[in-house]
């Protein structure tokens, strides 16, 4: 549905996007990640045909963006980063206007708009004036605009930016519902959301592709690591930190706090998630430390993102 091959964008001599290639298939939600200034929005604007590529090829549903922008626009729904809407219009009025502009036949406009309003949970706001809507409703309206005309491809630029947790969950549910019928490319800084909704991710940094692939596989292959937190009581004079650092499975000790009565709290990164927990527990038993808390978490998309983009950020 979305095919991007060797996409390059230059402003004068400055290369903002270099040789980027990826694709999105039908029924797939692809998370498009990168730090600020990585080139995400530029890529999305090029996908919509709003910006031209310096080199490379973009095809949306088989149509070349440069050669057939009209067909591309018919096949694509786009939610820009700042979600521009006409504040003085009413929700239904605005959606009808967009539907007519997108070429929805006059007789089908009303039923089509009702469908979209239902899909985006906007039933209670049909007659509301847009400027009176909350940020979450405005974002859902932006999504509704993207859905008008029933496009096969949806490109959503930071759709959950500025939403409260409830609105984020609501938005995620809508995306999940829509994901079966569309090919979706979503950029976001809320990595936990992307982890939950995307099948695959594409991470770019400094205009270059850093990593792409299946989200679960990437996380599994990353280093199988995670973070372990434990609270133990140790005898006086014992150096817990040193003991931990002597273990091969411990990558680094992130935090170390001491409390009264010999209690210490340690958080450390481990290399092999399952094995490391066994090793740590073995250490606790062998040293006869009193354990009151031991918890662990696998690496998340956030870890992957930070790992993959740290070189350029530093």
């Amino acid at each position, binding site marked *: 549905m979305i095919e991007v091959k060797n996409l390059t964008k230059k402003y004068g001599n400055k290369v903002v996007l270099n040789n980027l290639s990826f694709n999105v298939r039908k029924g797939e939600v692809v998370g498009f990640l990168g730090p600020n200034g990585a080139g995400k929005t530029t890529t999305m*604007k090029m996908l919509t045909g*709003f910006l031209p590529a310096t080199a490379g090829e973009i095809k949306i549903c088989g149509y070349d963006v440069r050669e057939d922008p009209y067909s591309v626009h018919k096949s694509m729904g786009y939610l820009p980063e700042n979600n521009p809407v006409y504040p*003085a219009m009413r929700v239904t009025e605005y959606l009808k206007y967009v539907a007519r*502009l997108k070429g929805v036949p006059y007789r089908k406009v009303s039923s089509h708009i009702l469908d979209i309003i239902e899909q985006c949970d906007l039933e209670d706001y049909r007659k509301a004036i847009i400027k009176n809507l909350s940020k979450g409703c405005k974002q859902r309206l932006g999504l509704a*605009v993207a859905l008008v005309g029933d496009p096969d491809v949806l490109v959503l630029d930071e759709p959950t930016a500025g939403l409260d947790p409830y609105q984020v969950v609501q938005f995620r549910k809508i995306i999940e519902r829509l994901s079966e019928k569309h090919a979706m490319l979503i950029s976001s800084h809320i990595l936990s959301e992307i982890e939950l909704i995307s099948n695959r991710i594409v991470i770019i940094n400094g205009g270059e592709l850093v990593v792409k692939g299946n989200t679960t596989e990437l996380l599994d292959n990353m280093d199988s690591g995670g973070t372990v937190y434990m609270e133990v009581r140790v005898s006086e004079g014992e150096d817990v930190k040193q003991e931990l650092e002597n273990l091969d499975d411990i990558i680094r000790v992130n935090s170390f706090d001491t409390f009264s009565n010999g209690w210490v709290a340690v958080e450390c990164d481990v290399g092999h998630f399952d094995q490391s927990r066994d090793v740590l527990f073995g250490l606790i038993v062998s040293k006869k430390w009193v354990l009151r808390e031991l918890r662990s978490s696998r690496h998340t998309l956030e870890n992957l993102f930070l790992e993959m983009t740290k070189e350029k950020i530093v």
Partner: protein
Amino acid sequence: MSKTILIFKREVSVYFYSTLAFSIFCLFLASTGFLFLQVAQSQMGERVTLSTIMFKLIFFCWLPIIATFLSMQLFAEERKNGQLELLLTFPITTAQLIAGKFTAALLFLLLIFLSAIGYVCFTEVMAGETIVSVISDLTSGLLFLVFFGMFALSIGVFASTITSNQLLCSTITFIMILFFYFIGYVANLIPHAPTFIKEYMNFPEFLNSFCDGIIDSRPLVFCFSGTVLFLLYSIRILEVSKHR
């Protein structure tokens, strides 16, 4: 065509939902009425018609201001808010977009002219003239104003596409419109100025002729060609600006 009409309808509704547009309307009618009364009283006994007074009042006082006001919110604001970006990702052409917005602004301008001409009609009819003779007196002058208004608006559209700053847009529009007001005068003062400027661009002179009922095709052709040219430039600029 249907998409142009859609954009036209939305733009017209924006004018009539906007309090600013109504304020301009009221201010225009109140000040034009007052000035019309003052000038008509001061010209009493002179060989000048009421329609000439009104047309000159509109042409010299209001047309540049209203054309500037209307054009500054055509594209500059939408560009700034990002609405233009979204519109241009819909399956519509830049030409449809510009045509819809331009015709809506032109309709609003025409309504303003007609509302002011209502003063002349009312006064003439009250003085015993028949409505048919009043309308026939007004037709040629109104024709000139519509063509020049169309030209001034196209300048505004052009300025609106080159900048997202409304103040800069209005300044460019106003200066360009004033340029076309005075270039004819200036050309007449310069001995070897190009003849086509004197013949085609002496708009204040043309206004006098049209007010006297003489329909000269030269300014109409010039304004029409100029409008088409500025609109084509605007389309091109909008398409190129996407590619920056």
